[in-house]
């Protein structure tokens, strides 16, 4: 047991009394439970320490606790109870001149109230009306546009939709995702762009933009305009562009290359280059970034000899217009701020020919690289690339020049059904037909008129909201159309495909065998990568990785690619567990992980040279395995300068055990640096001194041991046995990762803690099931869901906790099909 379970304190008589009343809803039972618990656990404390000033006779600060509502789902009462927690946990209350409670006693009260407040918050967020509207996330919006029209939508660019808010990492909680005026404006612009690309009036003219090295920057040909001279000498095409670490193609970090594209579309980009990797060092890493879009277009480690360049290819969907591209080698290297990091005035032809003598040295005398660097020959942009002509959207949604309306009605019916993920009603079709008619009457051509109607459809709430329920009746479960959407947005983050819509249309989707077959089909489909990417990111709150960028002086090896690799390890790990149908145990501990060369260098695991993420067997001395010792998880709690054991402990309690501790009081003093004349101390030692306050110790007893178990990993997740302390004097102290759980079980380090967690797998199982359901149902789980969640957890256990089985059980559960 990692922490106490208050429900065990409820007297049996309370239960028997409640059940004697006959059939009651689970929420009513829970409410009675809460009331009983309150009377037993909280009321005596309030009577002893609070009621004299906040009771019947006296209401200091206009606060009366004996009549304060105990409905924690009520926003007003929750605010007052939240304030009570804050005052008690910070020891502001009771006042100094009043009898003081024991610290453990106060901590128990705080913990109980905080747990009820969390339940209350979940209940508020999960409140359902007759009709619920759950907005698509911007990622879902883009996927839906693609599947509907066959064109990419740049919804996550800076000019796209605003970033989605999240609730404890989950970015798809319907009650949190709000619609702002900015959304409406962006929906219109994005839909217009998508329709123009999907239904162009004429075939887009393909362009090929070829940049020789000499075209990319003037520095390739040296200072001044030396192009004519080099052209005359036949050297212009032989000049190559050297890109050393941190440098941009244009010379100075931060500078960009302008790209003008005539039309929006998919572009094929090719780049020919060599990548020189120092023996035993990092490979050069080419990055192509569109600064104006704030979008990484491409990145990859490149290893290719000087004389045998490779041609890399990628596709990017880019809007028409001017783009500011930044192309660089993001491998770590010395600073480029002094002169040595600049371009020179002589063209580069070969390593043998050499570079400016004052430039940073890239090769030794044998021509072997000292630093990782790229040599670029050319880059080419070709597009827009179209799979077919007419476009897939034109093939589906075209209307003739004459006798427009009947055909428009057909097209609109099909389009509405797909866009709204439900049958098109006569009212729907007529409304948009009238729009087509009105446009044609005002002189528009038929296809332009149809596009206007389609634009209106894409800007309708039924498109960018997932709508469930009916105004006519308070349905307890969802219909097959809603089930198709729920399933599709759960596993694919997009609209249902044709087979799902067919099943919904034939009203067979809810049948277990049909539903199971569709779920299995969807798990095998390549689009499942959207789930394996999005769910672990949201469940584990991976968006926090790099939120506080590590200090460059303390962690000079940390770079963007490492950060990306850290997160990708976790999502790839999740993908592998799903594809191989492994057990949830693998999330807690394993003898393998997914690594690329960059992360392997970070973990000091030899023999990994591939830039792709591949399964790698781990040895005990690698000190990895499972999610908890992955660099992403270890670094997302750091503050950029040091690891944060308390935050790590809190994260484990929240994400793995689903028992988040109460919020800290507001008056916590920061950890002071060790004086120069005192020996260096680990963060653990400082925390021990910090926790001498009994008011803190009660909560930290549960949090800290779990966080401190990972002290062998620094702020960016590197293994260590000694903690580097920047203050104090003497030797850096050795790490002590040992600890004891609240139930008395001891461990010596993270590896042993992981074993204890595996021994408690059912707790993690229950937590995981709840996280998965939160993601799938786009709402917080409430007391009402406990029975269903418990049943799911049992099904998971019966299937030996296999991930695929858990997903299938969830999809087939009452919970999944309930409103």
């Amino acid at each position, binding site marked *: 047991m990692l922490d106490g379970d208050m429900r065990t304190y409820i007297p049996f008589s309370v239960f028997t009394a409640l059940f004697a009343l006959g059939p009651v809803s689970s929420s009513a039972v829970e409410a009675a439970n809460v009331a009983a618990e309150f009377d037993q656990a909280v009321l005596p404390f309030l009577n002893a320490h609070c009621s004299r000033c906040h009771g019947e006779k006296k209401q200091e600060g206009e606060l009366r606790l004996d009549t304060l509502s105990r409905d924690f789902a009520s926003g007003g009462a929750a605010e007052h109870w939240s304030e009570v927690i804050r005052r008690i946990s910070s020891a502001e209350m009771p006042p100094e001149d009043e009898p003081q409670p024991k610290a453990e006693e106060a901590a128990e009260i705080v913990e109980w109230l905080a747990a009820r407040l969390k339940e209350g918050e979940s209940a508020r967020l999960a409140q359902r009306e007759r009709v619920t509207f759950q907005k698509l996330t911007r990622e879902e919006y883009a996927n839906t546009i693609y599947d509907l029209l066959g064109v990419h939508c740049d919804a996550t660019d800076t000019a796209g939709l605003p970033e989605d808010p999240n609730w404890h990492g989950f970015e798809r909680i319907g009650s949190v995702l709000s619609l702002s005026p900015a959304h409406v404006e962006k929906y219109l612009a994005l839909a217009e762009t998508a329709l123009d690309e999907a239904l162009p009036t004429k075939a887009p003219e393909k362009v090929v933009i070829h940049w020789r090295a000499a075209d990319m920057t003037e520095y390739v040909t040296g200072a001044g305009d030396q192009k004519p001279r080099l052209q005359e000498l036949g050297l212009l095409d032989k000049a190559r562009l050297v890109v050393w670490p941190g440098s941009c193609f244009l010379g100075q970090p931060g500078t960009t290359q302008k790209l003008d594209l005539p039309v929006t579309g998919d572009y094929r980009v090719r780049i020919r280059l060599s990548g020189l990797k120092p023996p035993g060092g990092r490979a050069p890493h080419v990055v192509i970034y569109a600064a104006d879009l704030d979008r990484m277009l491409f990145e990859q480690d490149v290893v290719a000899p000087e004389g045998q360049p490779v041609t890399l290819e990628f596709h990017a969907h880019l809007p028409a217009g001017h783009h500011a591209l930044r192309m660089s080698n993001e491998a770590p290297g010395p600073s480029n701020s002094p002169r040595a990091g600049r371009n020179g005035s002589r063209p580069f032809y070969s390593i043998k020919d050499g570079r400016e003598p004052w430039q*940073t040295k890239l090769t030794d*005398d044998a021509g072997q690289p000292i630093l990782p660097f790229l040599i670029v020959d050319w880059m080419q942009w070709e597009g827009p690339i179209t799979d077919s002509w007419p476009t897939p959207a034109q093939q589906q949604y075209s209307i003739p020049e004459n006798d427009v309306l009947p055909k428009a009605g057909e097209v609109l019916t099909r389009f509405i059904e797909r866009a709204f993920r439900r049958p098109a009603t006569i009212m729907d079709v007529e409304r948009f037909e009238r729009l087509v008619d009105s446009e044609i009457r005002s002189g528009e051509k038929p296809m332009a008129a149809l596009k206007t109607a389609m634009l209106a459809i894409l800007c309708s709430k039924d498109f960018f909201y997932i709508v469930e329920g009916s105004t006519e009746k308070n349905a307890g479960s969802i219909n097959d159309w809603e089930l198709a959407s729920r399933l599709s947005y759960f596993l694919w983050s997009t609209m249902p495909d044709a087979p799902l819509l067919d099943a919904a249309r034939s009203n067979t989707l809810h049948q277990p065998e049909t539903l199971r077959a569709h779920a299995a089909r969807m798990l095998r489909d390549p689009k499942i990568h959207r789930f394996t990417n999005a769910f672990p990111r949201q469940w584990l709150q991976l968006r926090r990785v790099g939120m506080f960028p590590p200090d460059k002086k303390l962690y000079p090896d940390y770079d963007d690619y490492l950060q990306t690799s850290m997160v990708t390890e976790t999502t790839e790990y999740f993908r592998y567990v799903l594809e191989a149908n492994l057990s949830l145990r693998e999330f807690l501990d394993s003898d393998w992980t997914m690594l690329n060369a960059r992360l392997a260098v970070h973990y000091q695991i030899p023999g990994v040279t591939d830039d792709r993420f591949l399964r790698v067997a781990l040895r005990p001395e690698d000190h990895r395995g499972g999610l908890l010792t992955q660099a992403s998880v270890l670094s997302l709690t750091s503050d950029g300068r040091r690891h944060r054991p308390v935050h790590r402990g809190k994260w484990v309690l929240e994400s793995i055990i689903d028992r988040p501790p109460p919020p800290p009081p507001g008056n916590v003093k920061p950890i002071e640096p060790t004086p120069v004349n005192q020996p260096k101390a680990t963060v653990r030692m400082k925390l021990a001194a910090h926790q001498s306050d009994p008011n803190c110790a009660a909560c930290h007893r549960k949090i800290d041991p779990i966080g401190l178990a990972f002290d062998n990993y620094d702020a960016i997740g590197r293994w260590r046995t000694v903690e580097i302390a920047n203050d104090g004097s003497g030797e850096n102290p050795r790490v002590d990762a040992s600890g004891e759980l609240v139930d008395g079980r001891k461990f010596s380090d993270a590896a042993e803690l992981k074993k204890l967690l595996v021994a408690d797998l059912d707790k993690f199982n229950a937590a995981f099931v709840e996280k998965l359901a939160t993601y799938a149902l786009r709402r917080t789980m409430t007391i009402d869901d406990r029975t269903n969640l418990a049943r799911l957890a049992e099904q998971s256990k019966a299937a030996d906790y296999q991930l695929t089985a858990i997903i299938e059980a969830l999809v087939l559960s009452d919970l999944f099909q309930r409103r």
Partner: protein
Amino acid sequence: MYRYPLLSAVVVLFCSTADHSAEPAYRTDSGNEHLPWFQLRSGEFPPAGSGHYIAGELIALDHVNRTGVLRPDRNHSQRTDEYDRPLPFALLPYGSLSFHGAPAELRDIPIGTHLHGQFYFDKKGGNDGKGAFTKVLRLEDDFSFSTNQQRLWRIDTIALDKGEITVTGVSLEGNQADAASKVYQVTSATRVWKGRAIGSLTDLAIGQSVLMNLTLCTLKGPGRCTDIWLDLESRQLAAHQQFQAHFLYVREHGLAAVIDEVDNQHGIVTATLFAGFDFHLKNEFPVNDFVGAAVAEESLRTYDQAGDFMQGPILEVRSVPVVPGNSGMQIKFKPERLLEGYRPKRIVRLFSSRWRVVELPREERLYE
């Protein structure tokens, strides 16, 4: 052999560090005339005594690139049509100069100064490309040359009406007189240095032991005195002034060194300082102090030393055998980063951390 009888005697002294234990495999001024002259090898210092003595008058110079043109003194080995033919030269990277008895740069030497030098044969040198003695290890004015030989000139006669003085070479103590005396011109433009002041020709006196700098040695007989230092104090003052110019120059331009070794893995550079600087400056590079290194070319020009030099701690200072061009001082240091120009046999300018690395005038910089 030489126009100046003194020189035939002192050439051997000038090359006094030559190893005479074995016959060298190349021709020397006092060796086998049938052997080829010594050929310089890139990145290596030449052996002692391997150069060829040439004296002459500086008639053009490019102090930035350390090149110039000498009008060689006439000698009996020359055909008459070779007389006074200008000899373009370039100072070797480790080549050095001395002026007024102190280390100097080409910029310190006035046009017209008569110089004594050690030259090396360049197979591709000369106006016709057939080879010439164009590589210079060492150049000295008469003041420095005589000082190094520990010789003075004793005034035997003074004929101001003719503008002539007769002198004989003697030791510092006034004995060991040359077999023959010399006649030099003095003019109203001749500067006479007396004590800490400037004197005049009337301060010349028979029997005085003086030092002279000369010009027009070839065309107008034995030569014309540009300067005459009458006493020790005046000579010390002249040397002191030149030392100050030298110190100033070194602090602003650094000391040139050749890179012996680069440990690319650990970023450590080992370099040997060239000769030609005052030995007191060796104390400016103690171990653990920082040293700055700017990449230089063979002309010793840097690119933009204030912008591109790299600094780092001195790990070791050790003595190495002294040979011509080599100061005998080797420094191992760890710059903050390695530069392309930090490669064996390449040249750097080293700056003590006690000197401020300043921006040089544009004409001196190679960086565009």
